[in-house]
């Protein structure tokens, strides 16, 4: 492969990413601003109930608050200022607690990353072997049972499963095996390091189960279908004819070829890693990205919403690019030149 062409291609794609990125953020900025509900009136009439205002004074106070949040300026000026700050990776301060948005994301991100990496890893770890098993024994009763089981799991709503797990495995009335709130115990810092890690993993059991079970069906079906198609091809028959053991035939010759399309799925993986699950984080009181983003939308915390959108958009665009490059590296039928022409 010609390295020069590849660099040329990557550069060209990268410069296409920039306008797309600004387009996404601009549209989001406009939508947020146009959407009804304002952070100022939320501040004055909070979710607690009673709001106190007296006529003229309140207008003055509203104006002052708008100015404080920078909402008194026209939208294009606000967007310009936002962009200017973005260049230095400054996402501004949250309206909610006036802390820098980047700090809030730095707090939430590792938690969500950890949860997602573990659960995505488990999804792959369980569903690809399950898929292989089904493909090797197609239409056997085990195949049917796994399929049925995975689809049952797939259709169970996660909030319900999470609550059932909490009540029966972590609550005070039945089995009390797992913690059900937060990601570490309160006062965990008094334990030795490895027990702290154990404490963390112990807390992650129920949330990870709730995040994992629903993702199994798709991937196992996907790998089953791919593998079945490959197994029917001639080179597999050749491999068998050469007298290779069945596991070598399936794993080395079949699976490698069958999983090339999985690369497409990688494109969705990167943004999915940082997007937290609102429901699971809410139920297990996990202060991750899902909860941060959800609360920001409800309280109209514009700087936080914009920061999350910008990061997600950037990661999505980058991972689309990575997917395309990976394709060329893996599959000799695709090359940069063809795209280039």
């Amino acid at each position, binding site marked *: 492969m010609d390295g020069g062409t590849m660099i040329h291609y990557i550069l060209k794609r990268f410069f296409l990413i920039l306008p797309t990125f600004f387009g996404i953020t601009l549209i989001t900025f406009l939508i947020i601003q146009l959407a*009804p*509900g*304002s952070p*100022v*009136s*939320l*501040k004055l*009439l909070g979710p*607690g*109930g*009673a*709001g*106190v*205002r*007296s*006529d003229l*004074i*309140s*207008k003055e*106070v*509203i104006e*002052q*608050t708008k*100015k*404080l949040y920078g909402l008194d300026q026209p939208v294009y000026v606000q967007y310009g200022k936002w962009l200017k700050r973005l260049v230095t990776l400054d996402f501004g*301060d949250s309206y909610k607690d*006036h802390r820098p948005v980047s700090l809030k994301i730095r*707090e939430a991100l590792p938690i969500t990353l950890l949860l997602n990496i573990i659960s995505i890893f488990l999804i792959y*770890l*369980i569903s690809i*072997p399950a898929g292989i*098993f089904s493909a*090797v024994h197609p239409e056997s009763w085990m195949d049917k049972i796994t399929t049925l089981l995975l689809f049952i799991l797939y259709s169970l709503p996660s909030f319900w499963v999470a609550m059932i797990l*909490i009540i029966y495995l972590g*609550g*005070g*009335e039945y089995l009390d095996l*797992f913690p*059900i*709130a*937060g990601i*570490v*115990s*309160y*006062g965990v810092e008094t334990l030795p390091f490895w*027990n702290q*890690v*154990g*404490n963390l*993993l*112990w807390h992650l059991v129920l949330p990870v189960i709730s995040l994992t079970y629903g993702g199994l069906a798709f991937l196992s079906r996907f790998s089953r279908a791919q593998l079945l198609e490959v197994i029917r091809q001639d080179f597999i028959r050749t491999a068998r004819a050469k007298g290779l053991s069945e*596991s070598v035939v*399936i794993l080395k010759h079949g699976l490698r070829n069958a999983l090339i399309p999985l690369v497409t799925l990688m494109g969705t993986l990167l943004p999915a890693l940082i997007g937290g699950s609102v429901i699971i984080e809410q*139920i*297990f*009181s996990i*202060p991750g990205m899902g909860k941060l983003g959800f609360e920001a939308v*409800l*309280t*109209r915390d514009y700087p936080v919403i914009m920061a999350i959108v910008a990061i997600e958009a950037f990661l999505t665009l980058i991972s689309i690019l990575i997917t395309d490059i990976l394709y060329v590296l893996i599959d000799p039928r695709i090359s940069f030149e063809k795209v280039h022409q």
Partner: protein
Amino acid sequence: MSRHNPFIKKRRCLFFLFLFLTLAACNVHVPKDTQTLVWHLGAEPDTLNPILATDVYASRIDSFIYETLLERDNETLAFKPKLAESWEASPDHLIFTFTLRPDLYWHDNIPLTVEDIIYSFQRIMDPKVDAPHLRVYYQDIKTVEKVSDKVVRFIFKKPYFMALEFCGGMPIVPKHLYDNGLHFNRHPTNRAPLGTGPYRFVRWNTGKDILLVRHEKYWGKKPDIRSIQFKVIAEDSVALQVLKKGELDLASLRPIQWVRQTDSKKFQEGFQKYEYYTPGYSFIGWNLRRPYFQDKRVRKALTHLINREAILKELNFGLGKLTTGPFYIEGPSYNHGVTLDPYDPETAKKILHEAGWEDHDNDGILDHEGIPFRFEFLIPSGRRFAEGLATIVKEDLSKVGIQVDINKLEWALFIQKLNDHTFDAVTLGWSFGFEQDPYQVWHSSQSDQGSNFVGFQNEKVDALIEKARVEFDLKSRSQMHQEIHSLIHEEQPYTFLFASPSLVALNRRFHNVKVYPIGLDPLEWTVGP
């Protein structure tokens, strides 16, 4: 085909992973400290700066750290000295002079002075400070001035019966920490508060917990409980499970939890349940700008059509009291002489008929002068009570030919519709302080911009409200309020629903627990084994 299966290997891996987890779990318990009160927080506060904070969680935590000039007595609710050892009001009720105790120190041993009080007032009034919710209360103060190191004077522009509450309850923050050039809204002290109160701030793990510990050099009576930990658990059904596990000591309960999920013998042995009424009530508000709600007879009929007793039983398991007016049901302003409009669909039909509402065009919906009786019922989403209520009201009103369309909106949109007056009927609750001024909700001047979003206008009520605002005698003021109560009930701009109790469960380890209208007071509790 070989029976060797790669899946077996994977399964062994999983088994080891599971084994590892189980082994790890044996060793990871953090021992429980029985001297700590663990209190549930439904959400994390935004800040612990008492001037910036807007949520109940922050004010709950701050009440152990920060102190004000005066406080209310738990039993009589009358003001008594706190930071101020004495106070005095001028005969015209415009000047309030407070003398501070001589022995006041912040938790870092710096003395609290009049300068701190003046600084706090200046910050509240500073437009760059994100405290608009508080600033509206203090607009009528002309100045706060130092008389001597220990004496401070609040001067008001006009007399107002709540003036003492405003200065006596004003949040006071340490000037020596805040006044260092950093921006007030972003100041580090906002997340590491430092006050003069019985508990000292220790740590705040974002999204997890906030820990306070007893201040051993506290000037007043030291509490028995050594530390208080506030745990953030977002879902209340999960919080109840954590409570049952013994990892929470104090948590609020929903009515269904109170009645159905906490009645086991085991729970009763471990926990004591408490019930008390704080000032507040729920209601259905009729937008008086709409043609069908303009006639007070129609509003009366609507109240007769809504079976409030059944709703209370159905939705709140009978926990609550039916109210007839806008005042605290256990306070002196509430007029117990006003009788409740009973559920009576027959009378309602008669009244609607008298008011001219009949099904003239035979389409199943009442109409009057060409206007069909069809309205939108606005409710905030995610509130079980409002959703249940709206469904029952829709059902009941449809029986007499009134069509209700339920419009469920997210909170930010909901309050925007209230502010723009683009709703027909709405359900909501008010909560307020023990001292209550009906001005903001009921005075006609508040119907354009203020909280009088239903557009209630009544000259008699306006006059009484204005008179009560400058009446400093509790008894005569309460009489005026009672009169307002009966006038508002007569006009029915709201269909008043219920005062709902606060329901909590507390671990039986704590003793000397008394229930006051103000709630529970952990400062007087003792800890048993």
